[in-house]
């Protein structure tokens, strides 16, 4: 049995469901719209055996029947539906979060919440990224204008973006540009600045031992928003050098993840940089461009 947790219409979740359905997998979706119908309990015995069940509507999932679990829940209280109170929703979230943590290693979990949280602090995540052998950009997080000026002096063109996992558009400050009030509120909140790394982007989806790389050629600083800023973008399936692919697989495993979206950039001099590892990647967007079977591979992993 496979347990899914999230919203049925959300694209990566919908794609995984379609792939599982095509293979006649036994699937239960814990739909966040239906939290009022959820009940469950977990029990850890004195011998560390985890048992219990989760029910939604007329479907019950026993923990010992699980072969795979996939989660992409959203923090959207309005999605929980009218009959559920915030306290009920919080108790469901807490139960499911713990369930995803404590099930045995024999269950394919994509991904455990504690491992997913590594991307909630980008500078902290850079430490294991660098340890894996990828180059990482020089980075400073500061709310001090003098420290920023010093960093710009040393690195010239710099990029700034969110420090946390909250999605933000990467912005660039050219080497001799004046800030023109862009960072007037810098003192309120430390912001992450990185040296600008030239090159082509590679989004690498790792699913267990499988690697799906997409090469993105774009003249915008942040290729995700190229269309909004009038820039061009092309995305094609690519093959990584074996050692780079192996490094991405090792990095994913070292972060405790079964599935990850690894953001790489290949410089003109042939150096591979890694900016971050997305621990809940929206792989369906990339799959729609490259046609790579990422959702299918995730479904196969979940089926064991």
């Amino acid at each position, binding site marked *: 049995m496979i347990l899914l947790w999230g919203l049925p219409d959300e694209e990566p979740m919908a794609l995984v469901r379609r792939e599982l359905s095509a293979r006649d997998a036994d699937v239960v979706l814990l739909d966040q719209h239906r939290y*009022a119908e959820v009940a*469950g309990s*977990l029990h*850890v015995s004195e011998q560390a055996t*985890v048992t219990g069940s989760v029910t939604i509507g007329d479907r019950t999932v026993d923990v010992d029947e699980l072969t795979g679990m996939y989660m992409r829940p959203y923090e959207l209280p309005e999605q929980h539906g009218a009959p559920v109170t915030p306290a009920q929703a919080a108790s469901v979230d807490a*139960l499911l979060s713990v369930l995803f943590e404590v099930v045995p290693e024999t269950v394919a979990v994509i991904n455990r919440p504690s491992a997913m949280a590594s991307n*909630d*602090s980008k500078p902290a995540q850079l*430490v294991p990224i660098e340890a894996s052998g990828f180059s990482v950009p020089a980075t400073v997080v500061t*709310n001090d204008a003098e420290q920023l000026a010093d960093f710009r002096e040393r690195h010239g063109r710099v990029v700034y973006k969110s420090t946390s996992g909250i999605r933000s558009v990467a912005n660039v400050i050219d080497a001799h540009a004046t800030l023109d009030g862009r960072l007037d509120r810098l003192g309120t909140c430390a912001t992450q600045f990185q040296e600008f790394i030239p090159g082509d982007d590679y989004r690498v989806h790792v699913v267990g031992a499988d690697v799906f790389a997409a090469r993105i050629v774009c003249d915008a600083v942040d290729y995700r928003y190229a269309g909004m800023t009038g820039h061009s973008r092309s995305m094609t399936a690519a093959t990584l050098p074996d050692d780079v692919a192996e490094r991405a697989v090792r990095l994913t495993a070292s972060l405790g993840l079964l599935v990850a979206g690894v953001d790489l950039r290949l410089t003109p001099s042939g150096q591979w940089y890694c900016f971050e590892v997305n621990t809940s990647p929206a792989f369906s967007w990339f799959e729609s461009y490259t046609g790579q079977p990422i959702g299918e591979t995730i479904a196969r992993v979940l089926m064991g």
Partner: protein
Amino acid sequence: MTGAALIVCAAEDAAAGDLARRLAPDCLIVTPPDLSRAGWTYAGDPALRRGVADDGPFTVVDLCGVVTRLVAIESSQLPHVRAVDREYVAAEETAFLRAWLRGLPVPVINPPVPMSLSGPMWQPVQWAAFAAGLGIDTLAAQQVGGRTRAAPDTHLFGPEPGDHRVVVCGRGVLRGPGLDDRYLTQTQQLAAAADVPYLTAYFRHDRLSGVDTWPAPTEPEVLDLVAAELRNEPAGFRPPVAGRTSSVGSR
């Protein structure tokens, strides 16, 4: 003692205030609004990290240790930030502190982990599974959610008045007189496996009944323990206190 102890806490944290008085004058306090004082910097090299407390700027070199009494920065702790920005700033400052507090060359009670700024904030079922996996005799644990209602059950994991208690903090230990060494060994085993210097374990009927990694220096003896670790004082005998707890859960 060389350097000051840094306490990272909420503005209204009484236990942090007690600890600061115990450590005075070698103590700095940082509360969430202090993170908006210009001068904070994170760099990969801890020696280059800087902060600003009420008393002024400091560097990691100025510190002898850190106590963190925040799981995360909450938007409600940032009244000086525009309301529309508070959730974002809270997430950003939490991410900043998580990087800033890791890898420091001084004791950190407790170090940040991906889901908390102060050690693992696990649920009882997680601690029970973790401890049983280490071979420690443990009470069974249960968690319910949604429409299910839990029936009170004192046979389950979770500290109760009357449980034996052991507190470890770095090299220091606090336990009741005559308490079996096995409990101390198991508490130290849990702290090492969870990678935290500060951990409280509870025992009932020869089984582990609860674990808490939240640094709670709310009693004089625990204050002594934490202060000694921050001041890098040698571990030594500490006067025994009541062997059984009269209350639990001081958060």
